[in-house]
């Protein structure tokens, strides 16, 4: 029997409805979990995504793409298959996609996290039979604390740097983490918050959806230097680029789940690593399985072979690897 969802050389495919979820090769009709570049690629005939994802797609892929916007929970019928989007807690507008046909329910998590970050629509478990889950941090060495505890560490560090008379550069994903951090800095109006163009662009696009964030774009022209004590948000790729010369005297930190490992921290040569992740850690991945009540687990990008074995042997659930081409681009974006 053909499965409702399966992977082919283009993406996660629903043959019955003839649509793809997060395809990596161009297709007619694509359902997009969220706007990160490895999940939302160019060249598709039509994009179906959440309202908050749409402006980022146009920003990244151009205004001429065809987009159908949906709300969370809104059922979409395609050839008798019911699709609906549900909050994934990963970034603004990120969704798990539920696929139902004749009483059989599948859920594709896309990227997700269970912890509330204060900005993204919080994760809602979706009961299903078949769960296709990511596994970016699918090893028990990954155990993340609440983002709010990390926000506090970041603010404390910024203050410490201000006292030392140096600027603070935070490197983080321009889409997602940048906004959830800025969202916590609304009260910090006494010292300037400056943004790399990549972050400013995303903020600009999200303004169309009524989201507004503190911070101003550090324009390329005229070349000004950051004032003392400033906080600057930039994507990781800015590290080592000429752009950083404008930071004057600064300390730089990277915000990422990968910062959990000393090695990853040291390889980037940053002064500090904040363990801030938009993905589930090992415990959350397990909790999600419990919450969905899924009986079949398919594991995609990340530690797929390890997490699959864990689910199969230690949790006694049928689990298999689903080979997809998503690659976590967090540390190399742009």
């Amino acid at each position, binding site marked *: 029997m053909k499965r409702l969802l399966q992977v082919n050389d283009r993406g996660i495919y629903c043959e019955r409805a003839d649509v793809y979820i997060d395809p990596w090769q161009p297709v007619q009709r694509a359902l997009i979990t969220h706007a990160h570049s490895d999940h939302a690629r160019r060249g598709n005939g039509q994009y179906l995504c959440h309202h908050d994802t749409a402006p980022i797609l146009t920003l990244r892929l151009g205004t001429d793409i065809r987009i159908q916007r949906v709300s969370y929970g809104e059922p979409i019928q395609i050839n008798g298959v019911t699709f609906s989007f549900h909050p994934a807690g990963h970034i603004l507008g990120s969704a798990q996609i539920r696929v139902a046909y004749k009483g059989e329910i599948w859920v594709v998590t896309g990227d997700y996290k269970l912890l509330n970050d204060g900005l993204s629509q919080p994760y809602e478990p979706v009961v299903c039979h078949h769960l296709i889950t990511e596994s970016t941090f699918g*090893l*028990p*060495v*990954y*155990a993340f604390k609440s983002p709010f505890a990390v926000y506090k560490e970041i603010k404390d560090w910024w203050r410490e740097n201000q006292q030392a008379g140096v600027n603070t550069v935070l490197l983080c994903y321009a889409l997602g983490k940048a906004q959830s951090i800025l969202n916590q800095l609304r009260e910090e109006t006494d010292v300037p918050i400056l943004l790399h163009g990549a972050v400013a662009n995303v903020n600009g696009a999200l303004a169309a959806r009524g989201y507004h964030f503190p911070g101003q774009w550090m324009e390329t022209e005229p070349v000004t230097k950051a004032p003392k004590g400033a906080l600057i948000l930039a994507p990781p790729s800015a590290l080592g680029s000429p752009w950083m010369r404008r930071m004057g005297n600064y300390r730089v930190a990277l915000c990422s789940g*990968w910062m*959990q*490992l*000393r*090695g*990853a921290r*040291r*390889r980037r*040569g940053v*002064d*500090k690593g904040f363990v801030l992740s938009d993905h589930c850690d090992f415990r959350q991945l397990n909790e999600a399985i419990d919450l969905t009540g899924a009986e079949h687990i398919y594991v995609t990008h990340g*530690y797929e*072979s*390890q997490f699959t*074995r*864990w689910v199969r*042997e*230690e949790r006694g659930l049928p689990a298999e690897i689903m080979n997809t081409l998503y*690659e*976590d681009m967090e540390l*190399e974006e742009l």
Partner: protein
Amino acid sequence: MRVFAQLFEAIDSSTKTSRKVAAMVDYFDRVSDEEKLFAVALLIGNKPKRPVATTSLREWASALAGIPSWLFEESYYAVGDLGETLTLLMPQQSRPEETPTLKAVFATMTALRKYSPMEQRETLYTFWTTLRGTALFLFNKMLTGSLRVGVSRKLVINALARHLDRDEATVAHQLMGKWDPLTTRFTDLFPQQGTALPHHIPYPFYLAYALDREPADLGDINNWLLEKKLDGIRGQLIRRNGELFIWSRGEDLLTDKFPEFGPLTTLLPDGTVIDGEIIPWKDGHPLPFARMQTRIGRKNLSAKMLQEVPLVMVCFDLLEYEGRDIRHEPLLIRRAQLAALIDNPALQRILLRSEEMAFPDWQAAADFRERARQFHCEGLMLKQWQSAYGVGRRKGDWWKWKADPFSIDAVMIYAQSGHGRRANLYTDYTFAVWDGDTLVPFAKAYSGLTDTEIKSLDRWIKQNTVEKFGPVRRVKPVHVFEIGFEGVQASNRHKSGVALRFPRMLRWRLDKTAAEANTKDDLLDLLRLYGQ
């Protein structure tokens, strides 16, 4: 341990040496002599031996974390460091935090070795569930015998000198030798100015930097002593108070490993310290270093081994003569005294004076260096005749001028994700040479590329994978790299029939196609010419 953990964090989070030194001085100024002693031990790498077998650590930690052992291993692979893995896998505990003193932790490390497995496990569970954060990490790093703090010995000496208000050379000397913080007092280690050091303490070794300029820039070749750079163990031979001590540069006391030096106790006069290279030597020339390694590794030296791999010390310097420290004298004088001391038929089977290579000019020296391997050496050492014997690594008077490594152009055929520093990046590669129209793997290498090159190669690998098995990917045979190595040996464990010493990537040959890579025959030619 709390204050030391803060020091560790300060050092770990800074790349500037000035900040690291400042953090150490500040720390030394604040803590007790007792704590200082243990901290210095950890800072310079004088750490307790691993007290518990790692298999036990893995087993007990898996049980405490509630995971099967295979998942522990996978986690370890991803993290790349056992101490860190143990730390990350400890469950968040409800037991109240405790912060033992550094001394208590050191004492535990020593005591653990004598405990039964049951007692060991109980002790570890107590520490694992009551230590937090950096303290827990430091504990586990000591437990796995792998604690390294990101400061060089030189920086520690610098900070101690500032804290104690003494000059660095004195502090460096006082820090030499093996000392156990559990049986030493801080004031024993750093006695009042003018007090003599214990007689077994070696002098700090003087080290050379790799030559970073044209030899012609060094001036007249006649102002320099040129010696063969030999491949052995740098050692310091001490004959004082009727006793003989042989220290390695790693400050291991190796006296017992070298019974052939025993007669020196009577043959050398009291108050003698010689610097040299200990190497296996037979029939007038050195044997391969690998032979020495097997010998060093043995617990008991058989008569056969002693006969097959006899050792000598090739002496290049005299640091103490008739009980006087003569390190400040010019090399010319020290060498003359060395000659007078050891050019003695009774010593010739054990102590050889390093050969003073005579070249008419730098060009002749350069020619020799290029062919150094044919003369059983790695290149040349250059030492100014007027130089004093310094402390640590200094630029200017002493240089090492090594021969270029062997090199072979090879095709990358497999890539493996690294761990630790390089987790989730493809950084470990397998290289092959042509044997007819098939590619035969012959070396693995993971160092030599820049971060930018690694990143772009990583991306290419992910897009050009032909097959995946676990962490390994077979990739399209496209990219050619120049592989450098220090030696070549026949090996029947390798498909190619050769084993290389210290293979590494010298260059990414983007200008070459796979077809232009070297062949297995080229490798075998090298083996014939230079094989060991």
